[in-house]
C-alpha cells in the first residue's frame, strides 16, 4: 500500500476497483488487471452464467415412529404442552466442502445439513415444531469462523429459550432443542410472517459464522398465504407457488433468493477480513451460494423472496430493463396492498417479496438480469449515488424460455394483509441511539454487556421507540421476536409505501430518525436488539431486552 495513502482512502479505492472488477467480470474478459509488483486485489476470475441457480432442499421432519434421543425436556420450554410439537426435525451443524463457482476451490464451509443456504424449512401456522440442532463441528477451525453455534430464526415469534439468544451458544458435541410453536403474535392473523430466515447468532462470531455458511430460509404459510396458487379457498392470496426442493424445480414459481458477498484468494478459497470492524465487503456477489448463476423462467408470474444475507452490503435491486414488479411483503410480512415499483432497497437481513410477471417481457427478449444498483465502497455504509443500469452489478440472469405466455393460475390480489390496530396502550417512549465512541459501535452510548439488562419491557404493553443515528454510517437495526410498525420517518408520518408495514429490520442512514410502535407478547425472557451489519453486531452493537410479566 502506498504509505502516503490513509487506510480509508486506500480501502475505498480498492473497493471501487473490485467493484469495477465485478462489472468487468460480467461484461468481458478484461480480468487481467495489472496492479504491479505481481499483486492483484480481487478474487480470481469467475466467468458469469455458467451454473444454474441452486436451491437448498426442504427440511424433512422425522418419521412419526422415530423419536429423538435423548428425549425432549418439555419443562425447558415455555407453553410447550399448549403448543405441543406435531413435527420433529433433527438438524446438524457441520463442515462441508463447497465451491461458489466451478473455477474456484472447494472451501470448508460451516453448514446446516451440509448445504449453503441451509435446508429450507416449510412451516405452517398452527403446526408447532421441535427442531434439535446438533453441533457436529470440529473442536477448532483454522482461520475465520468459530465451532460454537446458536441458531436464531429471524424473526420467529418464539420463546426466549428457543430464540437463539447470542449467549445461548454451545460447543461441538452438544445440541439444543428449539421449540417453534408457529403461532401468530397475540393470536392475530394480521401478524402473520412469511419469509423468515435462520442463521447463526453466536456472540462475537455471528459475522464469521454466517459468512462461512450458517444461514437458510424459514418460510411460514397460513390459510391466506397458503403456498397454493390453485387454492380453492376464495380468501387465499393464490400467489405464485411452489418452492424449489434442491434440484426439484419443475412447477416451482416461489423462489427464495439470498444475496451475499464474499471474497476469495487466488486459489478460489473463501477468505474473510477479520481485522476490519467497519464491515466486510466481498468483491463477488452470490445468489443462493453461487456467483452469478442463471435461472430459466417461463412467461408467467413468479414470486421472489429477496433476502440480504450480509454481512455488510446494502442492495438496491431492480430488473435490467427497468420493468416494474409488485412489491408484496416487507421483511417477509405481507403489505396491506401490493405496490407497483421498479426497485426495492434492502439493508442486511431485510427481506422483500416481489412478484415479477415475465409474460410482460417484450417478445423477442430472452435474457434479463436482476441487478444491484447500490454503490457501496466501505463496509459501514452505502454511497448516496445510485449506479446507472449499465454499471450495476448483475446478480442473476433470467433466461426466458418461450415466446408466448403459459397458463398461470396465480394472481396478485389487490389487497393483502391489513396492519393490526395499535391497540395496546403506550406506556413509555424510549430513545435508541446508534452511535460510535472511541472506535466502537454503541447503542445509547453503551457496548453490549450480557450481564446487563438494557431494556426491561412489560409483556403485553406497548412503547414508542425513537430510533436515532448520527455520523457517516448506516445501521440496519434488528429487533427480535415481534414485528414493529413505523410511525414516522424523519418526522414525516408513514401512511403508505413500503414502510407502511410490519418490520423487524430498520435501515437507518446517516442522520435518520424513525419512530416505531413496539410491543412484545406471549413470551418472556431475553431477546436482542442489534445492528444487523454483523460486523457491527459482533463488535458490541447490541442491547439486551428482558421481557417480564
Amino acid at each position, binding site marked *: *500500500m502506498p504509505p502516503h495513502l490513509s487506510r480509508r482512502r486506500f480501502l475505498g479505492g480498492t473497493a471501487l476497483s473490485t467493484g469495477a472488477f465485478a462489472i468487468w467480470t460480467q461484461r468481458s474478459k478484461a480480468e487481467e488487471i495489472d496492479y504491479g509488483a505481481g499483486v492483484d486485489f*480481487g478474487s480470481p476470475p469467475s466467468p458469469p452464467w455458467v451454473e444454474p441457480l441452486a436451491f437448498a432442499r426442504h427440511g424433512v421432519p422425522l418419521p412419526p415412529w422415530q423419536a429423538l434421543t435423548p428425549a425432549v425436556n418439555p419443562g425447558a420450554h415455555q407453553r410447550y404442552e399448549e403448543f405441543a410439537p406435531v413435527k420433529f426435525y433433527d438438524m446438524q451443524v457441520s463442515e462441508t466442502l463447497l465451491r461458489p463457482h466451478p473455477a474456484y476451490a472447494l472451501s470448508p464451509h460451516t453448514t446446516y445439513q451440509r448445504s449453503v443456504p441451509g435446508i429450507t424449512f416449510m412451516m405452517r401456522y398452527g403446526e408447532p415444531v421441535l427442531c434439535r440442532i446438533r453441533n457436529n463441528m470440529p473442536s477448532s477451525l483454522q482461520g475465520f469462523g468459530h465451532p460454537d453455534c446458536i441458531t436464531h430464526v429471524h424473526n420467529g415469534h418464539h420463546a426466549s429459550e428457543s430464540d437463539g439468544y447470542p449467549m445461548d451458544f454451545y460447543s461441538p458435541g*452438544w445440541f439444543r432443542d428449539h421449540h417453534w410453536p408457529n403461532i401468530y403474535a397475540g393470536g392475530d392473523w394480521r401478524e402473520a410472517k412469511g419469509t423468515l430466515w435462520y442463521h447463526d447468532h453466536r456472540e462475537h462470531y455471528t459475522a464469521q459464522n454466517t459468512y462461512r455458511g450458517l444461514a437458510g430460509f424459514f418460510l411460514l404459510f397460513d390459510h391466506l398465504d397458503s403456498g397454493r396458487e390453485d387454492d380453492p379457498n376464495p380468501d387465499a392470496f393464490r400467489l405464485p407457488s411452489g418452492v424449489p426442493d434442491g434440484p426439484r424445480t419443475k412447477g416451482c414459481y416461489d423462489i427464495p433468493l439470498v444475496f451475499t458477498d464474499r471474497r476469495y484468494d487466488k486459489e478460489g478459497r473463501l477468505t474473510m477480513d477479520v481485522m476490519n470492524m467497519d464491515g466486510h465487503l466481498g468483491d463477488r456477489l452470490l445468489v443462493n451460494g453461487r456467483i452469478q448463476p442463471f435461472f430459466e423462467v417461463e412467461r408467467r408470474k413468479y414470486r421472489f423472496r429477496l433476502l440480504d444475507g450480509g454481512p455488510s452490503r446494502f442492495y438496491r435491486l431492480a430488473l435490467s430493463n427497468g420493468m416494474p414488479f409488485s412489491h408484496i411483503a416487507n421483511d417477509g410480512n405481507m403489505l396491506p396492498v401490493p405496490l407497483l415499483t421498479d426497485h426495492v432497497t434492502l439493508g442486511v437481513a431485510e427481506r422483500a417479496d416481489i412478484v415479477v410477471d415475465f409474460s410482460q417481457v417484450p417478445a423477442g427478449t430472452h435474457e434479463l438480469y436482476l441487478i444491484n444498483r447500490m454503490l457501496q465502497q466501505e463496509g459501514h455504509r452505502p454511497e448516496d449515488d445510485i449506479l446507472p443500469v449499465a454499471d450495476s452489478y448483475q446478480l442473476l440472469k433470467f433466461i426466458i424460455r418461450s415466446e408466448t405466455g403459459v397458463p398461470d393460475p396465480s394472481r396478485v390480489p389487490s389487497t393483502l394483509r391489513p396492519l393490526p390496530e395499535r391497540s395496546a396502550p403506550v406506556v413509555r417512549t424510549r430513545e435508541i441511539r446508534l452511535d460510535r465512541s472511541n472506535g466502537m459501535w454503541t447503542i445509547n452510548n453503551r457496548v453490549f454487556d450480557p450481564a446487563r439488562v438494557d431494556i426491561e419491557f412489560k409483556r403485553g404493553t406497548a412503547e414508542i421507540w425513537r430510533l436515532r443515528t448520527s455520523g457517516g454510517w448506516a445501521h440496519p437495526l434488528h429487533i427480535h421476536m415481534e414485528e414493529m410498525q413505523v410511525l414516522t420517518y424523519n418526522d414525516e408520518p408513514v401512511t403508505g409505501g413500503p414502510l407502511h408495514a410490519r418490520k423487524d429490520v430498520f435501515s437507518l442512514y446517516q442522520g435518520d430518525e424513525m419512530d416505531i410502535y413496539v410491543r412484545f407478547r406471549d413470551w418472556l425472557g431475553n431477546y436482542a436488539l442489534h445492528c444487523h451489519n454483523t460486523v457491527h453486531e459482533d463488535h458490541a452493537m447490541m442491547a439486551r431486552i428482558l421481557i417480564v410479566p
Partner: protein
Amino acid sequence: MTANPCRDPGTDASASRRAALRTLLLPAGVVAFGGGAGLSRIAAGASQPREAPFGQARIESDGTRTFRNVELHDQDGRRVRFHDDLVRDRIFAATFGYALCPGICRRMADNMRAASELLGPIMGDPVSFYSFSLAEDTPSRLREEMERRGIYGRPGWRYLTGPTEAIREIRWSFGFYDAGEEDTLGSPGTHTAMVRFGNHRLDSWNSCPSLAPPETIAASVVWLFPSCRRPSLPAVDRLRGSGAQRIPGFVPPAPLVAQR
C-alpha cells in the same frame, strides 16, 4: 465438556492439519497478504516480498499469518520483535494505551487488569496481555505504570513501546482505527477503545471493546481455545445460557481443508 475426546487439540497438535493445508493448494513460494486492510492480496514467484507490506500480515501456506517484525522495547528495556516474540504461537489480548493518559486509557487498563485476574491460572501460560504505547512512554515509565497498577512481574503481562512507525504498523495490522476519522486512520495517537484477541496457530481473531465488562474480555480470550480445551472459568461460564445438552457418544470430526 472436557469429557469429550479432543481429537483435534488445535493449539498444540494442529501441525498435521496445517501440513495438509500446505500441500493441498498452494504452490511453493506463494503467499497471500491479509490482516489490516484484509483484502486477498496474492504475490507470487519472484515478485514476492520477503515481508508483508506496511500494515498487513502475510498469510502463510499453512493458514497462519506473519506480521512484520517491527522492533519494540518492553517495560524492562528488553528488545522485542513484534511477530516472533509477541504473536507467533501465542494466545493474547492487545490494547493500545498511554501511561500518562488519565482518561479512557486508564479505565481500559483497569478493565484489562480485572480481566487478567479472572483468567488467573492461564495468564502467562498460554495467555499474554500486551499494552502498546508510544515512544514518549519510555520503558521505565511503563514499568512505573505497571508497578502502580500492581501488574509488574505478574505472569503474561507486557507493556511495550516503540517508534511511531512501529506502533502505527501494529495498530494498522490489528485493525485499530476509527471509521469516523478518515485522516487519522492508524494514527498512533488515536484512542481506540478496543482489545484485539488472537490465537496465532489457529489464525483465530476477535475483538471487543476494552470498556466491555472484564468478564466479556476474559471470555473473548477463552473463546480462542479449541472447544475441547477451553478453560472452565466461573466468571466466564456464568455468562452463558443454559439449555444445551451433550450428544451421546460424540467424537469431534477432523476439520476439513480446501481442495481443488
